């Protein structure tokens, strides 16, 4: 599989503080499913921010879709961002928009005509089991429902990469299983998935996934190789 994400000796520092990420190097193949694990404060969210282009690194090289995004002009970032779906830890739904409008947002941003977005938005809401809640505002949705709206919003544009930050952190085990099922289905359609989690048990639910551990801002395997969960053959299912 061709590489879609490449980090080389990436460091990230906020302001003048210590480095949050240091010498992070790894490659992700297109269509891979990666869990990013590590204790709180290990730098998982910071790494994801670099991945979904919310931050630029302080040093090092990042290549996405074959392009160096460290030196990429700011004006070209939107086009790259449209290829990346993000499920934020706190969902970050737009509070005054309905579930329908939140899900439709990426398509509207991409300039899709109104008459062309209704079908995919309704299908996506149905896919996440929220067809009957399309007019509901985020404040009236439960945590799990908000999460599914956030996932629907992240995937409706058929992104090449889906990044999810602790997507199972606020939901029960059953909901976590359903979310992973959604991610797996999307992964089978060709989307590269990166899920940050501190729950290593999730790995067993996606047999073909790989694990990358972060510890104190460094990939714990200094060679940069990605480890696979125990009991799962190398190369995935």
């Amino acid at each position, binding site marked *: 599989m061709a590489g879609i994400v490449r980090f080389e000796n990436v460091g990230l520092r906020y302001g003048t503080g210590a480095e949050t990420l240091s010498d992070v190097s790894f490659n992700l193949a297109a269509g891979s499913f990666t869990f990013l694990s590590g204790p709180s404060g290990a730098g998982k969210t910071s790494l994801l921010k670099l991945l979904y282009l919310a931050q630029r690194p302080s040093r090092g090289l990042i290549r996405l879709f074959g392009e160096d995004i460290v030196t990429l002009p700011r004006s070209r970032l*939107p086009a790259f*961002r449209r290829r990346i779906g993000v499920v934020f830890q706190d969902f970050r739904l737009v509070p005054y928009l309905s579930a329908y409008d939140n899900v439709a*947002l990426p398509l509207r*941003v991409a300039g899709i005509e109104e008459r062309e977005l209704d079908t995919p938005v309704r299908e996506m809401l149905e896919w996440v089991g929220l067809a009957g809640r399309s007019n509901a505002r985020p404040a009236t949705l439960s945590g799990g429902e908000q999460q599914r709206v956030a996932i629907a919003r992240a995937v409706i544009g058929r992104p090449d990469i889906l990044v999810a930050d602790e997507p199972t952190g606020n939901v029960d085990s059953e909901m976590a299983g359903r979310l992973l099922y959604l991610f797996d289905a999307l992964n089978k359609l060709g989307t590269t998935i990166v899920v940050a989690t501190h729950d290593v048990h999730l790995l067993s639910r996606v047999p073909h996934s790989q694990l990358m551990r972060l510890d104190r801002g460094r990939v714990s395997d200094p060679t940069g190789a990605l480890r696979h969960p125990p009991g799962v053959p190398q190369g995935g299912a």
Partner: protein
Amino acid sequence: MMLVWRSPSPRHGNMLPVNRLSGPMPWVIAIMMFLVVLTAAAGLGLGQASAHLRGGLAGRITIQIVEADPFERGRQLHAALKELRRLAGVTRASRVEPAKLQALLEPWLGTGLDSRDIPMPEMIDVDLTPEARARLDSLAEVVRAAAPSARIDQHAQWLAPLDQLLALLKWLALALVILMATATAFTVVLAARAALDNHRETIAVMHLLGATDGQIARLFQRKIALDSLFGGMIGFVVAGVIVLLLGRRLNNLGSELVGAISLPAGGWLLLILLPLLGTALAVATARLTILGTLGRIL
């Protein structure tokens, strides 16, 4: 109740709540536009009065024939009139009728004035072309040759300070309009920054979804355009009513000079353009502010 304005454009509709009339900005713009329209109308009116002075009153002279002997006075009057009507550049030369003179003097001398009791001068109103105005000395010589008792009263001479004052007031009005437009632009800058701050989280999400700065700026521009247009039209309508009422009052005064303070042809068109220009200024200012602020975010 929050009014949510839905954009007719599918590309940008439903992305941000656009709450029209929800903040003070439309009312600030209404007040500013009210002042701008009043000031602009005053400037235009003064400009018109100044032009009237220069074109009409300033091109006029009054010739007085101050002669005690009524017979000689009459002779000089006719001789002067005859000469004046012969001269090139004199568009009108007419005797001020004694009745009109009596009416002019009535406030001081009372009614029933008899010229045999108090000899009154003969007066001739003369309108000159600008060219003739330039060679007034030679005209005066011709008149004095025909009527040695003639005294020439140049309106331009005593109107000059007034004309200068009107010109000064006109420029002052223009300066005030520019100042108020600048103040409005700064208000829009503050409003745009506040709007960006209020929607910071949504803007961050939209950026991460791939929205361009231009797309985000357009959302705010719509709100600011609506607020500005609404406020501008209210300010214009209120100021317009006041301008109309003042215009009537000035006309009713019956003074040629004060009555000359009126809007020139196309004045109303210019005034109605002000809210539209104000809206364009607000939108351009908002766009520049928003793009400048967004440009500092990744």
